[in-house]
């Protein structure tokens, strides 16, 4: 039987975003560079880097992966409809699963580039298996983050221990009901790390040809089973709280954001030659997240790529930083139809009236071109 139309529409609302793979890609490239420069003989250090770097890669895209469950504006809008909470969960879960595969892919490629020929050795394969065990468990645990967020992001009766906990952990600077969302993501990944640890230890001992104690094997199996088999319960927990948790979270975000008075426009904008370019640059600064930090990351990636012992790894580093700089600009590009409607009657250049802005595109591409040129110069140096 075909799915009802509303379910199809609901699921279409949850779409992927650059942040769920581009940010993990950059973190993964940095992680791989770090792994690559460590001495292959320092196995303990490499194992620690994998145990800590894996969660960092997943953490980098966690908010974007789980955005659809509670944070997305379309979720709030759809809550006025008589749709069961579990359906909202299922819609967000589809996108979550896709994003998880993307993070898994970029992490695995990065690890492959870092380990190179070491992958032919048991210890190299052991490091890859460490990453895989953690990621599989994390995929099972991550749906609990919005589920617990929804269940505990509600208002409980006065005098309830949960109410007291919400108040004490919030410190008074956000809504007590929204406090759980500050802790749940890190807690979730922490649980995934703890559950994966016995399995990783068992794999490492096995890869080094050491005996694996029976207790460790049981703990490893328990970790994997707990991490993956309990996942089907998460939608039920989510459904109990989603209709309260989403409005509370939205209210908390608005309160934290304060009135809609943005930062003053940067002084350098005045140096741009045309009103159209100034308009585009202002929208880019206001509508894309942390533009200065993204540019800084691109600048930092260049010397790292220059020093990189591996050409593909250097390329991955500059590529990931470039994508992180460029991709958010899609938020401005998406406004093209609106810009076209708005500017059509104004005395501006024809390209601008059509919503295009070639000068802005050149300005956006300039740092990427420079970064690639400098990195290339580093690779072809004698």
């Amino acid at each position, binding site marked *: 039987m075909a799915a009802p139309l509303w379910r199809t529409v609901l699921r279409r609302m949850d779409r992927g975003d650059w942040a769920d793979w581009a940010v993990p890609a950059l973190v993964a490239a940095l992680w791989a560079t770090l792994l690559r420069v460590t001495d292959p003989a320092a196995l303990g250090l490499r194992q620690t880097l994998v145990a800590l770097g894996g969660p960092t890669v997943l953490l980098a895209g966690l908010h974007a992966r789980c955005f659809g469950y509670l944070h997305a504006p379309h979720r709030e809008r759809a809550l006025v409809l008589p749709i069961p909470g579990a359906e909202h969960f299922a819609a967000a879960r589809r996108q979550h699963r896709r994003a998880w595969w993307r993070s898994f892919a970029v992490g695995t490629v990065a690890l492959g580039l870092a380990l190179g020929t070491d992958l032919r050795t048991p210890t190299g394969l052991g490091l890859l298996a460490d990453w895989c065990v953690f990621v599989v468990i994390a995929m099972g645990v991550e749906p609990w983050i919005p589920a617990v967020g929804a269940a505990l992001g509600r208002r409980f009766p006065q005098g309830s221990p949960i109410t007291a906990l919400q108040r004490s952990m919030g410190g008074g600077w956000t809504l007590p009901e929204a406090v759980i969302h500050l802790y749940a993501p890190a807690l979730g990944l922490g649980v995934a790390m703890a559950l994966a640890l016995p399995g990783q230890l068992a794999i490492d001992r096995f890869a080094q040809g050491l005996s694996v104690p029976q207790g460790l094997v049981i703990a490893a199996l328990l970790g994997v089973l707990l991490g993956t088999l309990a996942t089907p319960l998460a939608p039920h927990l989510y459904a109990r709280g989603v209709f309260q948790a989403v409005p509370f979270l939205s209210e908390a975000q608005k309160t934290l954001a304060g*009135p*809609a*008075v*943005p930062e003053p*426009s940067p002084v350098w904008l005045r140096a741009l030659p045309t*009103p159209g370019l*100034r*308009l585009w640059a*202002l*929208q880019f*600064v*206001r*509508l894309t997240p942390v533009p200065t930090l993204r540019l800084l990351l691109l600048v930092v990636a260049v010397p790292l790529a220059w020093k990189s012992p591996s050409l593909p790894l250097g390329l991955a580093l500059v590529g990931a930083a470039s994508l992180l700089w460029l991709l958010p600009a899609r938020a401005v590009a998406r*406004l093209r139809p*609106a*810009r076209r*409607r*708005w500017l*059509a*009657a*104004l*005395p*501006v*250049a*024809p390209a601008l*009236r059509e919503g295009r802005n070639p000068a802005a595109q050149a300005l956006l591409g300039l740092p990427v071109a420079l970064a690639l040129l400098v990195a290339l110069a580093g690779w072809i140096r004698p």
Partner: protein
Amino acid sequence: MTAPLVVSALAKSFGRHAVLAGIDLEVQSGETVALVGPNGSGKSTLLGCICGTVIPDAGSIHVAGHDLFREPILARHGLRYLPQEVEVPDGLTGREFLAFYADVYGVPEAAAEAEARSGLGEAIERLASTYSVGMRRRLGFAAALAGLVPPRAAGPRLLVLDEPFAGVDDDGRALMRDLLGQARRHGAGLLVAAHERDLRELEAFSPRLVTLGQDRPKG
């Protein structure tokens, strides 16, 4: 003296449906022309053609003596447009929106008076995307009049308004009437797509009525 608007033999069809056929229209300096007609009669299409957002199939449009398609920039310098739904770009405050308009029309010094004219008070510092419909209209109106009242440049000017009073409170309407009167006294031609309610607001300007879609079946 050059008329702010001269439209000759204008035609526009969407597929087989002819929305405008052989439209001739002139708006003189200081004159108010009210376009009336039932929904779907082509008022918005005609305004779209005049403002360059809809490309006609035939005919010519001259704004302030300049052909809209051969001299697009010069023609647009003589044209101010307040659409029915004021589009405010994401990421800009009300103040930045007005500054952009004033800048584009080459009258950056008019931004401050446009700001005062909008009557938005402290809200002018907020992101314009957070404004209510009425506030957006006030902002759009102030932007359209930037450098027009008082006039900062010589030459004829055309002010095109699509149902300008919709969604505006009583104070806003009074302010808009006053400003439209000033624009007219300064020689601007007004072309207004209007419903009955708008006609009452325009009574003081003795508008010339142009009715569209009379020969088309209703219903």
